[in-house]
């Protein structure tokens, strides 16, 4: 295969790659940032449909599970056809799901539309776009990912007040309709992917590949513990005697350092002083240390200690996220990266279901229940923090 030296903009690390980073920024913001801000709708759903918080929280759980479950499908379709078609179709589905949800007359409709259809759309968007961006970079891969993933945190901060405003003006039906329209903006993001000719060889990732299997196991284990601190922070903060505002502020601050961590670690890793795998291990270990220190600091009763540890945890967990994705092509090679990522997401979804009993029901579900609780008690600022992180 020939690498053209004349066409720099289209080559790896070329300027078109950064355009794709922007596209990934926007689309992950519209996928995960949106998912995280759905908490605002849940209070409305609980009142309108007169259902319990648990029932309603399953909507977002379904959406996330669907996104992860359909990821391999998305990557397979990319391999079979091309990424542009898949992402554009995913964007249409994501928008369609929300538009249909605005017409829902029972909670089941919401599961099927906001959960299944939009989730399918999100699955067809996220992993293919990530893979495409990674394929377009070699030297700046981690930084590109870090920048793009910072979109999740930033957009969820922006979406919270926006969704609140939409619900106040148009009630949940109108707000969902408009969100559907917003989600359609994924389609132009997908359109930016240049069509590529792919080698016809089938790309299958073998399970027996030891590096991949080991790596997968590591990521799976990571996911079990990843969300737990965010949920328990508020619960334990209160037990340790901190007010709900203080605890929620801590979560919000951790979310901010998360964004910072993603960008910084990506940039640092690309400088090449250390091997990516080593850096990844370092951040994971650090995150683990800080998690263990969290209950210590909250029990000690010192608010400053809790804030510090949470900030450090947020930073390290964000840092490991960018590298976790960037490591995949290193392990399986760029060609098989698409399929590998898809499978990885699928496994993350399985972990989510399995890890649920470990951390007491689905952490996402619990998170949204918390979010609902704060909204009901009219602690709007607190609930904004909680709902953002969830």
């Amino acid at each position, binding site marked *: *295969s*020939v*690498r*053209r030296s004349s*066409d720099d903009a*289209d*080559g*790896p690390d070329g300027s078109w790659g950064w355009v794709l980073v922007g596209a990934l920024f926007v689309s992950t913001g519209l996928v995960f940032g949106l998912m995280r801000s759905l908490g605002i709708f849940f209070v409305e759903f609980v*009142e*309108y449909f*007169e259902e319990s918080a648990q029932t309603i929280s399953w909507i977002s759980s379904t959406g996330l599970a669907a996104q992860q479950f359909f990821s391999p499908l998305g990557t397979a379709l990319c391999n079979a056809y091309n990424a542009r078609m898949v992402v*554009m179709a995913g964007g249409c589905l994501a928008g369609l799901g929300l538009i249909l949800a605005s017409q829902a007359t029972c909670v089941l409709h919401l599961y099927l539309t906001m959960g299944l259809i939009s989730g399918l759309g999100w699955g067809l968007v996220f992993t293919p776009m990530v893979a495409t961006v990674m*394929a*377009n970079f*070699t030297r700046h891969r981690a930084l590109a990912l870090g920048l793009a993933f910072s979109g999740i945190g930033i957009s969820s901060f922006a979406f919270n007040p926006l969704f609140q405003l939409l619900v*106040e*003006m*148009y*009630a949940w*039906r*109108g*707000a969902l*309709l*408009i969100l*559907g*329209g*917003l989600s*359609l*903006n994924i*389609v*132009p993001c997908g*359109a*930016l992917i*240049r*069509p*590529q*000719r*792919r*080698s016809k060889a089938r790309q299958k990732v073998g399970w027996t*590949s*030891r*590096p991949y299997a080991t790596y997968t196991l590591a990521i799976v284990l990571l996911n079990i513990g990843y969300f737990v601190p965010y949920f328990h922070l508020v619960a334990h903060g209160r037990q340790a005697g901190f007010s709900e505002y203080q605890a929620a502020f801590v979560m919000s601050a951790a979310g901010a350092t998360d964004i910072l961590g993603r960008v910084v670690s990506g940039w640092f890793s690309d400088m*090449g002083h250390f*091997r*990516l*795998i080593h850096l990844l291990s370092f951040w994971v270990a650090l995150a683990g240390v800080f998690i263990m220190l969290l209950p210590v600091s909250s029990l000690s009763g010192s608010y400053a200690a809790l804030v510090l540890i949470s900030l450090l945890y947020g930073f390290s967990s964000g840092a490991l996220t960018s590298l976790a994705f960037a490591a995949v092509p*290193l*392990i*399986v*090679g*760029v*060609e*098989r990266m698409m399929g590998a990522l898809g499978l990885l997401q699928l496994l993350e979804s399985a972990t989510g279901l399995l890890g649920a009993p470990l951390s007491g029901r689905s952490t996402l579900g619990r998170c949204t229940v918390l979010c609902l609780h704060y909204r009901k008690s*009219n602690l709007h600022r607190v609930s904004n923090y909680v709902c953002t992180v969830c």
Partner: protein
Amino acid sequence: MFCSRIVLQCDIMAASLAQLIEEGWGDYTMQQEEGEKIPCEKAALGEDRGIIIMSPSWTQLLFQILLLLVCCRHINTKTSGATPSPLAPVPTVARSVVLKGESQNETIEVLNPIKLELECTWTGDQDKLPNITVYWMKDENEIENSRLTVQLENEPYNLKREFSIEKEENLGTYSCVFENVSKINFILAAPQIGDVREKPIVSYVGDYVVMTCKMEESKPKPSSWNWYKKNGTDEEQIFPAEEPRYKIKNEDEKTKLVVHNLTEADSGLYYCGAVYAIATTKSPVKLKVITYWEPLKPFLAILAEVIVLVAIILLCEKSQSKKDGATGNETNADQTYTLTEGENKDQEGNSSVRQRKV
């Protein structure tokens, strides 16, 4: 036979009761609603006991009494909202406040009719005159015959007065005033509904809406809830029985009003009322009914923007590919997926991770 404070719920049709009145049951007051269960209460509970005076036509009456008993069910009265129960002695509540400074406010939550004894203690003023005037006020008006001139003797002065709080008009602000300057305000009110939603609730024409009101857990629960709609300057109570479009679901500490088949005329101000023996506290809830066209406008704008963006991107690409068309088709395809062996090696420096070589 005598009637104690039992509320009889009768399934008798209005007509029979009217007959009963004519035949000498004039003491009873009734609320008649067509075809509905008719609550009959003995209104003349001012007397010690109500004794049914037998009308002349004994047998006729007896028959009707039996009829009454057959289809009535005895229900124990709760001290329901509007009925005063003067048979039980009204409890006396005392509140005593020592004035610190020039003015002070004290909130008193009143649920039932009570006799309220308010006591103000004033430690006096440094440059005090030996004689001071004290009086009581209700809602900025001086209460007649409450003015006194007293002599202070180097010790705090106690001013006491008893008030009979029976009806809603008796609620308000009672103040004891010393020397026209220092006063203590006792604010008497039924428990107020705390969290008031200021933004209007929005819903759509043809859809339904759920409006809720909640009384804080710490406050006493109302005996029941009512809902009112503002019509001009009046507030009309909503009766779900009359209009099946409305449904009221009451729980002890919260209430829900569900309105189906909304129309734009349903927009406006609604009030939920927490009913206590002494008064009903109201809290406003605003409803706004809009058509689907409202959110459709921004949606269509966003849709247009998306279509335009996609068109621009695809057209730009097409025009660029036409430009490159001269250099041949292979340059179009971006072969970033397949890397050379050389690139594999220097990808991450001295990576020792096993990689599948293409």
